[in-house]
């Protein structure tokens, strides 16, 4: 639809809205598999859709994954806050009045780019579609406070299977599994009494903390920015979207990779994204 990566989209977590448009519009629905309906008629996902003024967009039941996305030509035109149009609901800033949309909201749409001229391709080629699997391998770089785990604890983290619990959102995902053991020690001043406690520190996005040694939590992009739980490693940047697609019940294995491996995976993902943009006749 001629947008760039700067044009905001709507994110729908499990459930989507019913939307009607008051003018002709060009849209596309991507992300997790879901039935897309215009005036009740099924339409294709990952493809350009042309809506007439008064058309109604609605959705069926999500078929896997966690979130699907509605893009509109010109982008969702909410004001930028701190350089972003995204919603940070915990701080009640950004997006649409700092909150998720509610029935009755009127969402502003920006002017089409390139005078509304549409690129020729109208569908994302299948090879670029993300995979929505019930099993995932998530690559992590060990570090931060992994030396505080016992050998057995680290073994459990890397060799056992972990399942995404229902406690999973944009802030973080909690996993159930065999648990881990932290080394006993006399705690440093100010750290708190549990061996999984540290003097409050900054949290890396994607870092994995295991409070009390029970359930690992991957901090995702809206996570708190710091706190007092030791982190044992960090999901590589190339796998953060994979983690975001994990629905409750997803069986997960954590694979330790080197920093060099992480950088290579990052380059591969960037190349793949560039090819996807290219296949759509667009540039980021």
């Amino acid at each position: 639809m001629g947008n760039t990566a700067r044009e905001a989209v709507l994110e729908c977590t499990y459930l989507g809205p019913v939307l009607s448009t008051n003018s002709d519009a060009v849209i596309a629905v991507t992300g997790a598999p879901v039935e897309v309906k215009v005036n009740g008629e099924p339409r294709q996902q990952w493809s350009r859709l042309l809506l007439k003024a008064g058309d109604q967009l609605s959705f069926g039941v999500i078929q896997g994954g966690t979130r699907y996305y509605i893009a509109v030509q010109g982008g969702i035109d909410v004001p930028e806050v701190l350089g972003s149009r995204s919603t940070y609901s915990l701080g009640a800033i950004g997006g649409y009045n700092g909150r998720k949309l509610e029935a009755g909201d009127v969402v502003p749409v920006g002017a089409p780019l390139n005078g509304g001229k549409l690129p020729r391709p109208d569908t994302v080629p299948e090879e670029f579609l993300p995979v929505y699997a019930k099993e995932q391998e998530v690559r992590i770089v060990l570090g931060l406070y992994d030396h505080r785990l016992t050998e057995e604890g680290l073994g459990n983290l890397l060799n056992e299977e972990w399942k995404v619990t229902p406690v999973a959102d944009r802030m973080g995902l909690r996993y159930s599994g065999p648990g881990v053991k932290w080394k006993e020690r006399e705690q440093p001043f100010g750290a708190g009494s549990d061996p999984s406690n540290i003097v409050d520190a900054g949290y890396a996005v994607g870092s994995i903390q295991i409070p009390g040694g029970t359930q690992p939590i991957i901090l995702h992009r809206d996570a708190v920015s710091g706190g007092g739980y030791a982190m044992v490693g960090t999901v590589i940047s190339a796998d953060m979207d994979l983690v975001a697609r994990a629905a409750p019940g997803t069986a997960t294995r954590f694979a330790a990779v080197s920093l060099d491996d992480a950088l290579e995976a990052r380059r591969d993902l960037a190349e793949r994204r560039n090819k996807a943009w290219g296949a759509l006749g667009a540039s980021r």
Partner: protein
Amino acid sequence: MTTEAAVLPGARYTWGGDEFLFVEVSEAMSLPANFKVMSIAGRLSDAGLPGIVDICPANASLLVRFDPDVLPPEQLGTAVRDIERDLASHQERALETRIVEVPVWYEDPFTAEVAQRFREGFHQEPEGSDIDYAAKVNHLKDAAEFIQRHHEQPWLVSMVGFVAGLPFLFQLVDHDKQLEVPKYLSPRTDTPKLTVGHGGCFGCIYSVRGAGGYQMFGVAAAPIFDPDQALADFKDFMVFFRPGDIVKFKPVTEAEYNEIQAEISAGTFRYRQAPVTFELSQALADPEGYNRELMEALNGI
């Protein structure tokens, strides 16, 4: 404060995936550790390396977010190590900062109501109040003595984070006078906005309503996070506190609290504040004597 705390070993460097460098200056909290963190953060910020996305000084560690496509990890690591090495011989001993008076309604009804909802299974002593418990574990006579200890000596903002604009506070007193209180056994799902809390050796002010595990003693009377930037203190930025700020709590009554609410509604409220130079060596040598000097800066403002 203990003199051995002033001598810190070299920092520990470790990667948080491919976008974060974590520098642990010390496992334990201390004023010299926090000072070193702030010194490294300041120098790194001044260096203006392209590819640095964010520099997050924390209590005794530093988190740096970077773009590895622009700044290779080894290059960042070397830059920070060079700064640390240079500081070992030229450690900054003074901090240009400000002292701010923060009015607090201790033992307020808002935190009391929330605390009532999180007792059994959440709190160490479900039958008592958070502040009674804090007094007890610090071997103080009663809540009143705890409150006095809490506000009579100032605190240093040693970190800003967790949620938008939340200051972590480290009291500027000798090690053996630090107030230490365990966090809740299990975190609450609710905490009133502006709750003055405490966990481990750290005080905090919750900038927004939400989850939290710190003990609750009162509410700050005025906002510390203002996305609309309506009040004069938020003209430059929506977050009030910066690492290095010095905070003096001032107890207020319900009537005074209500007067402040009226000033906030009218848009006229301003924090009492004054610029100060904070000298590490003086703070370590005679904390309470030096604090008196710092607090004098607020006189007549």
